[in-house]
């Protein structure tokens, strides 16, 4: 039985508006109405949440509790708006520098373990002897892939100067293509699933099948 919920109807109409792109094969008025509605709602909501969470909970709320020190981040945050005032744009440099520095520091601290050290360890773990044939085969493939892909990115190793390097680099490129192919295939799978999600909404929630 078709839904009587006004929210479901709005969702269904906006969904059909968005997919009207497929019929006209280009942007149309219905598509743009839906697009701007989504962007407007999302932006308004995010501003409200950020103001409530950051400014109220983390700044004004704490200052009201007597933690005067929190007035410093509040002022630094306000300095960001200097970008909007001609002649005072330099004020924004301090908060931007802080954001970049803190982000870089936090990222650099953790990225070495998760994305460098542990990945190198995993890439070096080639179990060939004493394991089942599938694991051994995978280890050999992994070993070849790691070496050839690294060789592909050694641009200083010129094929005319280093004999045999072109074959190794070409093999590395093959492995990269396999990765990109897998990624592309998975991307198509994701896009189809997103459409499936809207189809399920239309069929189950709106039309009531």
């Amino acid at each position, binding site marked *: 039985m078709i839904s009587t919920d006004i929210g479901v109807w709005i969702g269904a109409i906006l969904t059909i508006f968005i997919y009207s792109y497929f019929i006209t094969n280009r942007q149309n008025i219905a598509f743009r109405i839906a697009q701007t509605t989504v962007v407007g709602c999302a932006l308004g*909501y995010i501003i409200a949440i950020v103001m409530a969470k950051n400014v109220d909970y983390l700044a004004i709320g704490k200052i009201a509790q007597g933690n005067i020190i929190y007035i410093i981040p509040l002022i630094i945050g306000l300095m960001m708006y200097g970008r909007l005032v001609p002649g005072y744009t330099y004020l924004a440099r301090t908060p931007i520098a802080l954001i970049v520095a803190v982000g870089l520091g936090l990222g650099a601290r953790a990225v070495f373990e998760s994305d460098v050290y542990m*990945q190198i360890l995993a890439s070096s773990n080639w179990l060939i002897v004493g394991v089942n044939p599938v694991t051994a085969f995978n280890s050999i493939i992994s070993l070849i892939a790691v070496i050839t892909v690294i060789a592909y990115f050694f641009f200083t190793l010129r094929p005319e100067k280093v004999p045999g390097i072109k074959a190794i680099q070409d093999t590395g490129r093959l492995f990269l293509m396999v990765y990109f192919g897998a990624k592309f295939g998975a991307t198509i*799978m994701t896009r*189809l*699933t997103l459409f499936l999600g809207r189809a399920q909404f239309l*069929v189950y929630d709106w039309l009531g099948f």
Partner: protein
Amino acid sequence: MSALLRIDRRIVWLIILILIFYPLIYPLGLPIHIEDLTRKYYQAIEDLQPGSLVVTTIDIEAGLWGEQGPQAIATYKHLFDKEGVKFIQVSFYRADCAVLFETMVLSEVDRTKKEYGVEWINMGYLEGKETAMSAFAANFMYPTKDAYGTPLEQLPLMKEMKSMEDVDLFITVQGSGYIDTCLRQLPIPYDIPTVGATMSMGVPDLLTYVEAGMVYGILGGLSGAAQYEYLTGKPGLALRGLDSLSLVHIFLIALVIVINIVYISTRSSGGRE
């Protein structure tokens, strides 16, 4: 045959439309294969003992609901069913992640199975991305209030869960954008066992962490969610949508093969390139 190369793309879209909608109305019940990584994801939650402490992040944007919504619903249904397991839920990616959790996930689980504040807490969305993740991991009191504005010191669970050091399992339901950031700030520095659910296109990235031993189990896309629903015995949107997805995949694979054959044969006969 070369006419196939000039086919109106809307015909392909129409066929996809039929292949998606038909099984939704008339399910086919195609067989399902349970992958090893899905089983590990399920087992990590299933093996949690009463008193276990878990942190979950739901960081999926509204646009990804079709693929990741079923993953999130199945995961939280499973968590709410596990007696004595306590968890804190938090979102870092975007504000709509917390809205999705509140409106689309919690509406699907039986909330009466766990007492709020004692067995689970919803922190809502924390702005600040990597900075917020790092601050939260070190001190769960950092947000000061939960998603509903209750001061955290009033919630009994906060006495048991103070930082990531107290956590037994970390579960993340993520799009592909923030997996690496989330992993490197929350579970990895504290050596916490981790399982992750992600969209299909995020699986190749997450697999590198599986190979490195930092993530144990994965739910990959809708098919992962369907397998998980099958394991938990609670069929949902994923299992109902899998027939459509399988049919479209078969169609697309056939299309790629046929078009390539036509293209190669046309080119070799000196036709349109």
